């Protein structure tokens, strides 16, 4: 069964080829296109589940040692050899499950959402191609194949952000995403080059086996380069600027690519390379600090936005910051855990936003909504579940994963109190802006125009069913990783342990070992670690609840207060509302100077040097031709003379 892993990415690839070539060519019916795309994903999901269970049947230590499924040699050149091969281990199968599962539901949702779009076939072809690339990324057994997936998802992201390319904004947003990602990919590629230069291989197994022979400086450089790649793809400071603009794409795309799957690939990559990162404490610190800073910074930008999807975009950046914080403090499985729960609830939030847009005739500005919860009850309820999950309310999935990250940020060997504080503050902000979004959009008086009001309606079942499924997952998804402290068993962590190891999470084990004596003896002194964990958990939940209360106070109870506050702190308000003017600063520093350099090179170098030298050669040839053409007299006899002279010369040579 595990040998069939190559089928998982194959199905979407077939779906892509079918829809992209035949579907477009024959102008197939939307039902056919939609069902082909969804079936492809469904099969992929099914095989992921089957392989997941065959993996579960193996004993834990054997799970990480499943031989790679190598299909064929890809590049063989001198010492360099790389294959097309897939790796099945707990980490990659979790990713495959999340990717194919969430993708499947979003595909189904898309059938309803994109129903009236003229680019329906193109949309599904791209979407299938995206899933193919994403699965290649997570299942690859070497860096180079992973890089192919990495670039492939970048391409699909570009194509889908710019899906409505006839308008300027999406086309520019796509371009921006592509260019910013290129900066990150450049770092990733340099990292791969470094690995190859020092270890002579790019296969995961070989690299990680040989990694201990590297010295710290090299590993630090490699991991920092890889992190540049991760920061680009996963929208971390300073390369996050493309993600908010990426919201110009269709909403299911924002949900799938820019919330649930693609943007998390940086986290996956770092978790995959955890051995390298564990050897480079400096890189770990950089990752953790950048992650924490991003979590706080992006959350602060989300506080004041009015565009539903933009709020969610900043929220995504912030949550990705959490994941990087987790992997940066060595809590790799916590990072992956949050990646999974985030995929559920953030995917759901975006789909919910899409459903709201559907109801509100495409409106995105939440100031023009309000009070629609009765008209769209399913959307509202599922949205509420996702909001509770992301806010970290106990009982919902986000609570378990976020809390584990915060606890690790504080307690792990690489952790620090300040990291925890930043994370907790960001958690409060998250709770605030998410409930602000919920309150302003669904509750209070309706501020839509009469025309829009009349059309408010719940989405069709094909859209609401995926919402409900994801809502269910947003609730139960967390129960696979209940902290030991709450008397649960962290199945998720145990499942990933063969790959990610328990070492960096020793504190977790330490805490675990402390639990027993506490229960046994009821002693207070030995239970310090446990009490601390409970205390921090309590604080973070309290912070979240305070955030919710403030949101309630400002947006339900005293709705005139936000305006007053905004006027009172006008400078800060303006700066935050304009996203700290980072786009403008980048525009001045990087974009304009690059454009100037481009213009300079175009005028001086391209026109002046390249074109002129080409023209010079051409002129020389023309002159030479004008001289030599005199040989062509047109008289047969002069040619005959040439032949005879030539023959004589040859004969002289031969008989000499």
């Amino acid at each position, binding site marked *: 069964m595990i040998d069939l892993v190559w089928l998982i990415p194959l199905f979407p690839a077939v779906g892509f080829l079918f829809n992209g070539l035949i579907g477009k060519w024959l102008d197939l019916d939307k039902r056919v296109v939609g069902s082909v795309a969804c079936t492809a994903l469904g099969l992929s999901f099914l095989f992921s589940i089957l392989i997941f269970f065959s993996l579960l049947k193996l004993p834990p230590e054997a799970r990480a040692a499943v031989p790679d499924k190598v299909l064929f040699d890809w590049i063989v050149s001198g010492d360099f050899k790389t294959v097309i091969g897939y790796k099945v281990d707990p980490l990659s199968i979790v990713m495959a499950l999340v990717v194919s599962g969430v993708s499947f539901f979003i595909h189904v949702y898309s059938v309803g959402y994109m129903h009236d779009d003229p680019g329906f076939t193109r949309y599904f072809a791209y979407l299938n191609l995206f899933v193919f690339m994403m699965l290649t990324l997570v299942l690859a057994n070497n860096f180079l194949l992973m890089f192919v997936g990495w670039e492939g998802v970048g391409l699909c992201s570009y194509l889908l952000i710019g899906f409505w390319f006839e308008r300027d904004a999406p086309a520019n947003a796509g371009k921006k995403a592509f260019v910013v990602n290129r900066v990150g990919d450049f770092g990733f590629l340099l990292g791969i080059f470094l690995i190859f230069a020092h270890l002579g291989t790019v296969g995961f197994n070989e690299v990680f086996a040989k990694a201990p022979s590297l010295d710290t400086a090299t590993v630090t450089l490699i991991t920092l380069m890889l992190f540049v790649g991760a920061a680009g793809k996963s929208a971390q400071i300073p390369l996050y600027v493309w993600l908010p603009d990426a919201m110009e794409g269709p909403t299911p795309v924002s949900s799938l690519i820019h919330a649930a799957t693609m943007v998390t690939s940086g986290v996956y990559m770092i978790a995959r390379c955890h051995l390298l990162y564990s050897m480079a404490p400096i890189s770990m610190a950089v990752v953790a600090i950048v992650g924490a800073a991003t979590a706080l910074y992006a959350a602060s930008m989300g506080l004041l936005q009015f565009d539903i999807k933009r709020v969610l975009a900043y929220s995504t950046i912030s949550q990705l910051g959490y994941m990087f914080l987790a992997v940066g403090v060595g809590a790799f499985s916590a990072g992956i855990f949050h990646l999974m729960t985030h995929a559920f609830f953030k995917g759901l939030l975006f789909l919910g936003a899409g459903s709201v847009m559907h109801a509100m005739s495409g409106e995105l500005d939440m100031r023009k909504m309000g009070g629609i919860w009765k008209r769209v009850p399913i959307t509202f309820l599922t949205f509420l579940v996702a909001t509770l999950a992301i806010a970290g309310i106990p009982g919902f999935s986000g609570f378990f994963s976020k809390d584990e990250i915060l606890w690790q940020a504080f307690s792990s060997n690489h952790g620090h109190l300040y990291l925890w504080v930043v994370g907790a503050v960001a958690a409060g902000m998250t709770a605030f802006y998410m409930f602000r979004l919920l309150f302003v959009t669904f509750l209070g008086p309706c501020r839509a125009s009469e025309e829009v009001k009349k059309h408010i309606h719940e989405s069709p079942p094909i859209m609401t069913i995926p919402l409900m499924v994801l809502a269910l997952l947003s609730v139960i998804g967390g129960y696979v990783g209940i902290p030991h402290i709450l008397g649960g068993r962290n199945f998720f962590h145990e499942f990933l342990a063969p790959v990610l190891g328990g070492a960096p999470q020793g504190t977790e084990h330490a805490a675990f070992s402390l639990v027993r004596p506490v229960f046994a003896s009821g002693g207070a002194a030995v239970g310090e670690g446990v009490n601390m964990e409970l205390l921090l958990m309590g604080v973070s939940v309290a912070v979240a609840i305070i955030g919710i209360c403030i949101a309630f106070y400002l947006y339900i109870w005293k709705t005139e207060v936000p305006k007053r506050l905004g006027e009172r702190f006008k400078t800060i308000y303006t700066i935050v509302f304009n996203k700290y003017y980072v786009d403008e600063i980048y525009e001045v520093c990087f974009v304009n100077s690059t454009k100037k350099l481009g213009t300079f090179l175009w005028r001086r170098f391209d026109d002046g040097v390249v074109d002129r030298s080409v023209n010079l050669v051409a002129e020389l040839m023309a002159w030479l031709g004008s001289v030599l053409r005199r040989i062509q007299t*047109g008289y*047969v*006899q002069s040619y005959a003379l040439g032949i005879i002279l030539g023959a004589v010369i040859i004969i002289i040579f031969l008989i000499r």
Partner: protein
Amino acid sequence: MPASVTPLYFFVVSALIFAIGAAGVLIRRNAIVVFMCIEMMLSAVNLTFIAAAHYLNSLDGVLMVFFVMTVAAAEAAVGLGIFVLLFRGRKTIRVDEINLLKW
């Protein structure tokens, strides 16, 4: 054939005929004469072949001669056809007046 007649005689004769033919091709202006000069060159070659075949007791040379004659015949047909057409169009077959194919 007397034994004193060595192949050299034949080769000298055929070289002379070939040289005369080549000179004619280069010098003469009347296309038909040029053409006849070409035939002369071919005949000179034929002579060499025959002589060599005789002295080497081999049929290879003879065989080649047949090929050369075939080509010459075909060439004559085509060449004369071209001259006829040329004359119709341009009222001349002097090769120094036919120099359209130039720069």
